[in-house]
């Protein structure tokens, strides 16, 4: 038989320096990497929507068309709220890294409230804009893009609430074990970044 590849068992160090032992099936927690990979992919779905928007904008001389302009006040306030909430949620992550569960809960509740206000602001805008999904091609884009984004904000909100729920159990999150907290935070930043691009495309770009 050609050379054997199986050696006698010995402690094997993985790239993190931690022990990846022979304990059957155990390996380092890779969920954050998984989430990051997923979010890269999800960004590209929004990328597809953005490309469609820019393409359609490029072939129309008047954009947005007559009668479907964007309003700036509520969305700008919403932007400030959402961007700030990214800082707030980060405070929560900093807190749990110092083993401060109360701090985690405080800042995550505030983030959830800010997220809820954002969604409420979106709903308010939808109700008061004066045009709907099918009014014209710009409206199609507007509602589709903000709608999908809102859906993702809602999911982010659920993740934050999920963290809050789990944090009720003593010791579930501590200074060295808080993957769920991190994942919720990363997802929230993703939602924020997508909004910044959206805001630029729908609200800023349409001013020129």
């Amino acid at each position, binding site marked *: 038989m050609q050379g054997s590849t199986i050696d006698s068992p010995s402690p094997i160090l993985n790239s993190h320096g931690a022990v990846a032992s022979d304990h059957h099936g155990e390996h380092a927690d890779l969920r954050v990497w998984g989430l990051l990979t997923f979010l890269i992919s999800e960004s590209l779905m929004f990328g597809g929507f953005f490309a469609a928007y820019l393409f359609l904008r490029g*072939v*129309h001389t008047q954009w947005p068309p007559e009668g479907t302009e964007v309003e700036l006040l509520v969305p700008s306030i919403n932007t400030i709220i959402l961007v700030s909430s990214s800082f707030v949620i980060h405070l929560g992550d900093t807190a749990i890294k110092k083993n401060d569960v109360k701090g985690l809960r405080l800042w995550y509740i505030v983030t959830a409230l800010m997220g809820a206000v954002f969604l409420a602001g979106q709903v308010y805008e939808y109700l008061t804009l004066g045009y709907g999904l099918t009014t*014209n091609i710009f409206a199609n884009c507007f509602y589709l893009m903000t709608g999908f984004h809102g859906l993702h904000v809602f999911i982010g909100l659920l993740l934050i609430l999920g963290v809050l729920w789990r944090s009720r159990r003593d010791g579930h999150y501590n200074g060295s074990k808080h993957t769920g907290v991190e994942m919720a935070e990363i997802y929230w930043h993703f939602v924020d970044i997508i909004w910044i691009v959206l805001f630029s495309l729908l609200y800023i770009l349409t001013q020129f």
Partner: protein
Amino acid sequence: MKQIPASLLTLLAGVLVTLISLWVGQNHHLLPEQASEQAPLVDNFFGIMVTIGTALFLVVQGAILFFTIKFRRPAGDDTDGVPIEGNFSLEIFWTAIPALIVIGLGVYSVEVYQQMGGFAPATSMISHAGHSTHAAHHAGSAMAAPMLADASATTTGVAQSDSKVPTYGVGATPAEGGKTADVTVNVVGMQYAWIFTYPDQGITTSELHVPVGKDVQVNISAQDVIHSFWVPQFRLKQDAIPGEQTELRFVATKIGTYPIVCTELCGSYHGSMRSEVIVHTPAEYEQWLTETQMAQLQPDHRVAFSPAELSASEFLAPYAAEMGVDGHSLAQLHLDRPS
């Protein structure tokens, strides 16, 4: 065989491969007859690619065959082969040669495309000839009167401006330069037929008639779904796209009748969406033109549709023209109307 050096055999093989490939490139007979000025350009280009492809095919397949026979496992031999993991110069060689070939083909492609007239259909104004395309936006009517098109543009609210609209397709070859075409035909594709309109002569037909040796421009549009206008013998194809203006421009070089094939899936009867292009001598073309004009044209130059099929505005259009009601006054009426 052992006396003949391997290098000599390789040289012989190389010469054979080259000769065979050159021959195949010139004699494959895979393409139909050439009936346009662009056809020889495409065919020569294809011929070169066939030559290169044949050579590569023979070399690679030859190597595969040779190796699989020469290096088959001898009976009872369970040892491994030679532990060669690579050869840097060889790998550079077979990366560089294909890279050079594709760069060459790329440059040549641009050259051929330019000679075919591919760079010619640039931004162009919608001419009167194009109004029939613009009117195609208006749902339902294929041949709305010109001024209706103006009115419909303003009421839609998001119609493209009447100025610069990109035209896709193949335009005039460098030989024709910036001249306008000798013959202009508007084609509309619809499920499942092609309708040809000669705007300057005011006739409509279901086949394309062109004179040989003359520069013909075909303005292509689609009424319902995407179709595609292809004449195999011309080697030219361009999709007919709803909402877009596309064109083909050619000089037919051979008298005859050639198929016009729809080459974009357009529904259940896509396969039977065919027409013909008839290339006439100039004299025959003039004769056909005159005959068709006499058969079709009515005093008011209206296209011969049954009145029942016309919308109210289409029917009224010639009368309105007589009374002096035009697009502007109609547009005013439209604006005053609640939307």
